[in-house]
């Protein structure tokens, strides 16, 4: 019996203690007509060896690719020390740290994590994580609406915010009578159009500010933050945490003054030591000002003392949470993404401020180099002229799907096709190169792209790209 230790003699003596004739008798309060009599539709159990063989085969089938897709999930080197510590049983198989005295390891780690995230984002406090970046934005929108004293239920979301973050936010707030209003971007710069924003009528509880935005471009964050504050809105920053090793932290956005900085900062922690894993598990983070801490969803760890006066850590402000406040809680969130935060904390500690900055710089430089190479190919041009972090948009003169399919046949994932989310960018690809790419990788991409486009562009009319060979 997999994972069940009982011997025949155990079963007999346990049933005798209970006074039951059989294990079936333990289900005698369940109406007999409901008994499904087993699960014939589930395949027979496999030994560990057989399931291992099957899984290795499936993994090999999926293989490895030279990846230039970013769009919210980024390939970075993860130090070898991170995951062996994360998957130690004491972290991996521990419960939520409600029993503080038996969870000091996890709790202290979370306190260290909160400190790192608060500093990285330049804000006062951090929670212990949310599900992912998209759901963190949804929670930030709900939080901004809760904090709005005038009861305004309208939030401005630039079209340069990750389209899927917007979709998740829509799913989350749909039933709470909250209106999400789109703000257009400038077609030349690819960043939020300040003039269009200025022209928007009506009040709002918050303005969302992505940095870098979905196109990889750096938004005019100072001007946007000041604009939001001048119009009595909270500024919600959505950031790539790795970029903040290099870029101005949201807590310092805008003009110097008592109201300086974004009010809430969220994002996805995946670039900090979490593998891409087909999309999850990642973790969402949220930091904010001290004054908003009671409006914050999710778990918080505080430092306190024990009976001997020694420092220790415990979950705090639990009165905001569902297990205490029930229908009046700040959110229904219970489980968060503790194990991923464990990875991120160890990852950030290993890299330190200098290491994290050099990863950010190297990723920026690699994307710059990639862009230079790609726009040198006939039929390729750069789309926006803004400064970017580690992603940029190119336009190709050949149908995007064909190009990406042909690249894939050469083992290259060439980027993210933007047409699905932005019909006006149907001939555009969002590309990303991180520190994991060598100059040779970049050159491979350029050569293959050049070959595909030149075939496609008339030299051999009617001949399909090499993918169909």
């Amino acid at each position: 019996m997999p994972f069940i230790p009982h011997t025949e003699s155990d079963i007999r003596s346990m049933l005798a203690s209970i006074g039951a004739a059989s294990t079936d008798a333990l289900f005698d309060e369940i109406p007999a007509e409901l008994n499904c009599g087993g699960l014939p539709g589930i395949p027979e159990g496999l030994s560990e060896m057989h399931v291992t063989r099957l899984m290795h085969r499936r993994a090999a089938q999926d293989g490895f690719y030279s990846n230039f897709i970013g769009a919210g999930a980024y390939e970075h080197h993860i130090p070898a020390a991170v995951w062996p510590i994360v998957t130690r049983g004491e972290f991996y198989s521990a419960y939520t740290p409600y029993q503080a005295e038996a969870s000091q390891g996890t709790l202290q780690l979370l306190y260290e994590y909160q400190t790192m995230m608060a500093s990285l984002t330049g804000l006062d406090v951090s929670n212990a994580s949310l599900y992912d970046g998209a759901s963190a934005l949804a929670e930030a929108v709900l939080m901004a609406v809760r904090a709005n004293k005038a009861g305004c239920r309208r939030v401005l979301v630039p079209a340069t915010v990750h389209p899927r973050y917007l979709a998740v936010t829509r799913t989350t707030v749909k039933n709470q009578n909250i209106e999400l209003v789109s703000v257009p971007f400038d077609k030349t710069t690819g960043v939020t159009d300040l003039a269009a924003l200025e022209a928007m009528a009506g009040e709002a509880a918050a303005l969302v500010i992505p940095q870098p935005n979905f196109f990889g471009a750096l938004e005019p964050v100072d001007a946007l933050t000041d604009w939001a504050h001048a119009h009595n809105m909270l500024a919600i920053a959505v950031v790539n945490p790795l970029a903040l090793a290099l870029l101005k932290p949201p807590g310092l956005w805008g003009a110097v003054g008592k109201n300086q900085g974004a009010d809430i900062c969220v994002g996805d922690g995946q670039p900090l030591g979490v593998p891409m894993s087909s999309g999850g598990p990642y973790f969402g983070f949220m930091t904010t000002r001290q004054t908003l801490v009671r409006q914050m969803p999710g778990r918080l760890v505080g430092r306190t003392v024990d009976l001997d006066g020694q420092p220790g850590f415990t979950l705090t402000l639990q009165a905001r949470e569902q297990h205490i406040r029930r229908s009046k809680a700040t959110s229904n969130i219970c489980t968060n993404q503790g194990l991923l935060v464990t990875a991120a904390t160890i990852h950030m500690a290993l890299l330190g401020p200098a290491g994290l900055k050099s990863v950010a710089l190297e990723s920026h430089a690699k994307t710059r180099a990639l862009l230079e190479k790609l726009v040198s190919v006939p039929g390729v041009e750069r789309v926006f002229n803004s400064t970017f972090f580690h992603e940029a948009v190119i336009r190709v003169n050949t149908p995007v799907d064909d190009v990406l399919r042909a690249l894939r046949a050469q083992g290259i994932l060439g980027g993210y096709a933007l047409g699905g989310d932005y019909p006006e960018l149907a001939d555009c690809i969002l590309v990303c190169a991180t520190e994991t790419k060598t100059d040779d990788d970049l050159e491979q991409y350029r050569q293959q792209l050049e070959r595909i486009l030149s075939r496609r562009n008339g030299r051999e009319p009617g001949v399909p790209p090499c993918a169909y060979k």
Partner: protein
Amino acid sequence: MLIFEHAHPGRRAHAQAPYNAPAAFDLPADQLRQTPPLLPETSELDVVRHYTGLSQKNFSIDTQFYPLGSCTMKYNPRACNSLAMLPQFLSRHPLADVATGQGFLVSMYELQEMLMEVTGMAAVSLAPMAGAHGEFAGVAMIRAYHDARGDTARREIIVPDAAHGTNPATATMCGYVVKEIPTDRQGNVDLDALKAAVGPQTAGLMLTNPSTLGVFEKTIVEIQKIVHAAGGLSYYDGANLNAILGRVRPGDMGFDVIHMNLHKTFSTPHGGGGPGAGPVGVSERLQPFLPIPYVVSERDFYRWAEEADVPQSIGRMSAFGGNMGVLLRAWVYARMLGGVGMQRVAEFAALNANYLAAELNKAGFELAFPERRASHEFIVTLKKLKDETGISAMDFAKRLLDYGFHAPTTYFPMLVPECLLIEPTETESKETLDAFVQAMVAVKREAESQPDLVKSAPHKLPSRRLDDVKAARELDLVWKPA
């Protein structure tokens, strides 16, 4: 000592980051960070030693027994972890074409199929990332169903008073008003109260079965009739699915929508508070509203169903479709167990719970529902002990930690005074359960003879009892250098 206190300016783990990274020569100065973030400057060995040391301050399933009611803290098989962490799975980009992920996607498709079979539901989406996230999806689907029919007067969700806190919190997030109904003395939903509560305003009922009191709702068929006759839908909170695996299926009980906690029933790790996974299953009438994406199969090719396939979907719940790595672990677990293994899960979870209840009862502990069969968990009430000695359930739980046992769930459900909710799970041996009974007896004796020892527990852990009041009043959430 915090990691920051191990730091020395200029120290680095050099091998971890690119050598000779260039400067940001082309980025405008007003966009750049002026002062570095407060990350520790330490060596690789400093970091490895610090976090290995922290791990050793934790209780965990791999080191201790966790009789934590409602949480299903069973053994997390190691193969589930190692196979989910094969490099091809870890390195796959979520937006890579599905053609590059057929090995991964077929596993997700099979997991959906197995969960449909286990629950008796018509369709499953793996999108929700935790139990509460699944609850949100479930209640949002109930709302979408009524709205799609123009039945918009239904504003209330009925929740028994014994329910998990996430149930009422979720209903509120979906824009519903919560109506609580009481539990009768046998631990069942009070049918008369339910009858009085339902009406044209009822959107649905949220129910855990077996309930959080550790007993099966005997009148479940009747409950379904009452809710459905009023035009409401019924929601199954799958927190206690471990108790009925392969015995009774929520779909056969008449539920319209359910969520499952894979980090409970399917043995994926709790990870110190996540990541979980909270797939949802639905009956046919709710199928058009399932959250996206989920996997569909077309002539043995697997792809995600997205907006265009499911136009009435409640929408997307995460940027990329869910906690894939957790789902892979659940798939490995399900394949190792097989159908027969799953049925044995409930059988031995029930055997362990009923045995432990019987032994504790013989040792003088008062069961909250002595005349009822325990499901996979049961409640001991320490009210008498509290009245006689002043020792609370919390004190008792803290002293158990000194004996090397994680505390049972305390003060939940709230309607049983001074309660310990105990769930041993099927993976624990008889010897472990016997040792736990001995520890319970020893703590009870101490409560009677040396109450101060129990009140000031724990004594043998890395910290003594922590001051929660100070933590909340003098908030210290972030370390600041002196």
